[in-house]
């Protein structure tokens, strides 16, 4: 597919839903709720680990207006996973809607449904629970072999072996090794190593978790939910509620942000079971506290990284040992763990040996889940920090070490099973980034007086584009009776704009204005299957499916046009909203074509259809550069400038891509400098509001400059790769590097707080 004279693709089209959501039209889940819906509230465990001996509902049930109260006795006994993953999920079936054992502070104990919120809360306070308190596993470094077993239940199961050792609190274990790492290290001129602790991070999307449920005119369960994964939610609910999935419809309206949080099921089951038990509509909305403390976060990890290089600075061996904290449930334990190496090791392919080993462990804390970056973020922090350390030891410029070692087009990498890299402009990204940040003048540091010093740092990163051989999506486009088009997709726009870019692609192929396409998505009753918006999939996977479906339909329209014009197929061409002869002497409008074909004698609804999954997951890249100012008296770090140069292949919509990049970088800045999910000694989350958990505000992000260095990915739609996740990864290592260059304090435990920098300077 060549990039010539594109009319829609490559242009900064406004989002098709942009104006409505910007001015507050009622298009989000809560806006759609019927006024008679029952309000669902959840009684949660105050203990990190406990067994429920008894629950006394007598006083609560007597409250006027209470419709139902459910406990572990009222839910199906079949265990399930909330992971938003294609079936069969590589996730332990370790949950019940309500369980007799509670595994973290905030775990669900009872579901209360009442006529309004006040009544539900009043009833909730009248429930008496008798717990047998158990010794919790709170330190993830102590989880393996702890005397407490987080999941003692025998009926926990897995679809296949993910290295789960339940009695050892290991949810998943992983090992990948090519070559002999130990031998290779012996041959290296320089070997550096360190231990890193990237922290748990909260998604903090502005719209909290919520679902609204009711029974439709045929008695089927309808679930309107703010989710990234409608089809996975349908499957989860069928298993959790033990009803046929044909009896469930999941619809996704507009979503107020997801960032991976809404790739894990959350609130849906609680509203759904109330509707099934009462027959009444129900709404469950998590407040901010529940969103912080009763959903998921990024996996906190410990990573031991060792990198060896020869005298020229060529990296010969990499070893990563990972310990990941999956918390109380194991939804994304296995996959996030494997992605740590998957999305870091292929950066450097001059290696002779690489090894990654790791465990994801159960603890009695809020579960970890999917979060933009998905293991790559943690792995990038650890590996890139180590490579920066290596560069210093070798007395080489860190950008030069990257340029010498990165994978080039046409090359393979050790763990890549021979798959060739078909597109990368990472070398150009690095060069451009150096220019934009002023690397030559600023590296490594400069004193600016008043005890302040400025310095720069850098890191590179990659991600995937969809999940190879697993993420498969279908798209249907039809010509309507009025000559317009309907595009049916299962991709879920959570604000990032996939409804718009898929429409752009279809319009480009069909050579029609975007306004003539009606985009319908996110409804399991009408959408073709799509796994959902995660794993940086929509542009690359759903985009390719859209292109193929549009090409299919275009061919059918031309065939029909030729037939109606009485000429052969090679004598016609598209002409906007018409088909004409190449000679230009005859033309039929799509309106007329549709009338004659669909309404009338033609008896043929023209439909284009495609199912697409990729055998590869081409990596997008970012080179990130940070300039910081550190106060040597207080340790305060101020971010002055952040430059990110992005290779996402062809940029489908420059504005939306830039916004993805700037937003991802801001989240990365938050992770680097401000954010941390913290627990007290009893396992209760201490950071459950925006008062304690600081996300960056507009004064905290400095200036962020994003530039694109396009490459052309031959397997992607119009040459595109992904962008959604890769942009979140560079700030922690690049900022840590800049801080080190400023004051020689190497912060390995995120976030980089003034205290850590201050005490680091004291030790010198």
């Amino acid at each position: 597919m060549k990039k010539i004279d594109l009319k829609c693709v490559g242009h900064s089209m406004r989002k098709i839903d942009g104006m409505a959501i910007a001015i507050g039209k009622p298009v989000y889940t809560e806006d759609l709720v019927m006024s008679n819906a029952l309000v669902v509230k959840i009684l949660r465990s105050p203990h990190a680990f406990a067994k429920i001996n008894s629950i006394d509902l007598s006083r609560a049930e007597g409250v006027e207006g209470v419709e139902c109260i459910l406990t572990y006795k009222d839910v199906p006994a079949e265990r399930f996973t909330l992971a938003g993953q294609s079936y069969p999920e590589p996730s332990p079936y370790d949950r019940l809607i309500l369980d007799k054992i509670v595994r973290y502070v905030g775990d669900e104990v009872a579901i209360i449904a009442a006529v309004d919120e006040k009544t539900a809360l009043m009833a909730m306070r009248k429930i008496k629970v008798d717990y047998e308190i158990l010794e919790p596993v709170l330190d993830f470094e102590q989880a393996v072999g702890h005397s407490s077993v987080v999941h003692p239940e025998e009926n926990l199961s897995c679809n296949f072996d993910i290295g789960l050792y339940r009695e050892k609190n290991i949810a998943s274990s992983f090992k990948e090794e090519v070559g002999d790492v130990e031998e290779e290290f012996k041959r290296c001129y320089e070997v550096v190593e360190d231990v890193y602790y990237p922290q748990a991070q909260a998604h903090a999307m502005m719209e909290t978790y919520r679902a609204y449920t009711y029974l439709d005119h045929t008695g089927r369960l309808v679930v309107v939910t703010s989710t990234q994964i409608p089809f996975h939610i349908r499957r989860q609910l069928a298993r959790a509620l033990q009803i046929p999935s044909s009896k469930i419809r999941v619809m996704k309206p507009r979503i107020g942000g997801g960032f991976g949080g809404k790739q894990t099921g959350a609130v849906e089951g609680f509203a759904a079971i109330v509707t099934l038990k009462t027959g009444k509509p129900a709404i469950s909305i998590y407040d901010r506290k529940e969103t912080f403390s009763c959903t998921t976060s990024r996996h906190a990890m410990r990573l031991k990284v060792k990198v060896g290089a020869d005298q020229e600075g060529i990296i010969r061996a990499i070893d990563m040992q990972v310990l990941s904290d999956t918390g109380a449930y194991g939804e994304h334990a296995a996959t996030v763990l494997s992605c740590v190496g998957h999305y870091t090791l292929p950066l450097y392919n001059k290696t002779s040996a690489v090894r990654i080993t790791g465990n994801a462990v159960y603890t009695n804390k809020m579960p970890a889940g999917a979060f933009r970056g998905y293991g790559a973020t943690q792995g990038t922090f650890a590996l890139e920090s180590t490579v920066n350390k290596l560069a210093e030891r070798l007395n080489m410029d860190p950008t030069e070490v990257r340029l010498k070692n990165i994978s080039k087009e046409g090359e393979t990498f050790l763990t890549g099973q021979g798959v060739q890299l078909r597109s990368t402009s990472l070398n150009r990204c690095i060069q451009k980034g150096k220019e934009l940040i002023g690397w030559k003048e600023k590296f490594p540091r400069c004193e600016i007086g008043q005890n302040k010093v400025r310095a720069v740092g850098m890191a590179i990163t990659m991600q995937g584009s969809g999940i190879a051989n697993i993420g498969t999506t279908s798209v249907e486009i039809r010509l309507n009776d009025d000559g317009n088009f309907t595009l049916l997709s299962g991709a879920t726009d959570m604000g990032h704009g996939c409804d718009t870019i898929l429409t752009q692609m279809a319009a480009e192929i069909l050579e029609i204005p975007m306004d003539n396409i009606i985009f319908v998505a996110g409804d399991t009753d009408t959408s073709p299957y799509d796994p959902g918006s995660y794993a940086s999939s929509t542009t690359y996977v759903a985009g390719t499916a859209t292109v193929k479906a549009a090409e299919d339909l275009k061919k059918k329209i031309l065939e029909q046009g030729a037939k109606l014009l009485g000429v052969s197929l090679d004598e016609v061409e598209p002409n906007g909203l018409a088909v004409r002869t190449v000679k230009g002497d005859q033309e039929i409008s799509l309106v007329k074509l549709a009338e004659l074909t669909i309404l009338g004698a033609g008896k043929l609804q023209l439909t284009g259809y495609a199912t697409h999954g990729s055998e590869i997951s081409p990596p997008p890249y970012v080179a990130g550069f940070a300039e910081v100012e550190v106060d040597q008296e207080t340790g305060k770090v101020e971010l002055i400038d952040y430059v990110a140069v992005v290779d996402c292949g062809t940029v489908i919509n420059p504005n939306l891509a830039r916004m993805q990049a700037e937003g991802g970088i801001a989240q990365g800045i938050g992770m680097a400098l401000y954010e941390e999910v913290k627990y007290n000694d009893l396992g209760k989350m201490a950071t459950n509001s925006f008062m304690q958990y600081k996300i960056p505000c507009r004064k905290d992000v400095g200036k962020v400059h994003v530039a694109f260095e396009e490459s052309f990915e031959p397997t992607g739609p119009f040459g595109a790769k992904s962008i959604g996740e890769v942009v979140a990864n560079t700030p922690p290592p690049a900022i840590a590097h800049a801080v080190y260059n400023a004051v020689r304090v190497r912060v390995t435990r995120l976030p980089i707080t003034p205290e850590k920098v201050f005490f680091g300077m004291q030790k010198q």
Partner: protein
Amino acid sequence: MQIKVTINGKMVTWDVEQDEFLMDTLRSHGLLSVKKACETSCCGLCTVWLEDKPVLSCSILSLRVHGKKITTIEGVPKDAEEFARVLTAEGAEQCGFCSPGFIMNVLAMKNELVNPSEEDIIHYLTGNLCRCTGYMGQLRAVKTYLGVLV
């Protein structure tokens, strides 16, 4: 209890509870642009105007606005759309959930500040959190809208 208020130019009488917050009252009367997101007066999503000044409707008891004038984004559609067109031309609404509150504060700023500098703009809008955009696109949109040199 009853309150009489002028909502978006229209006088209404509403029954409210003693402990009811303005945000909930507004939503319950169909003004669904007003979004709840933090419960701790931190995020700015519920911003409306009380007597033409921006306030957090999550932190004001409905009883307190008796006799007052309240404006939500539904009440200033022309101005809101004018700025929203600039905002969406940048792609800086992203998920859109924080946009109505943000727009109400931008419009208030336009009325309040004369020739604001970039620093003034950032300071005025600091209370409006956004998790999607990283703020740079919003800033570009505001500067374009106000004619501040980009």
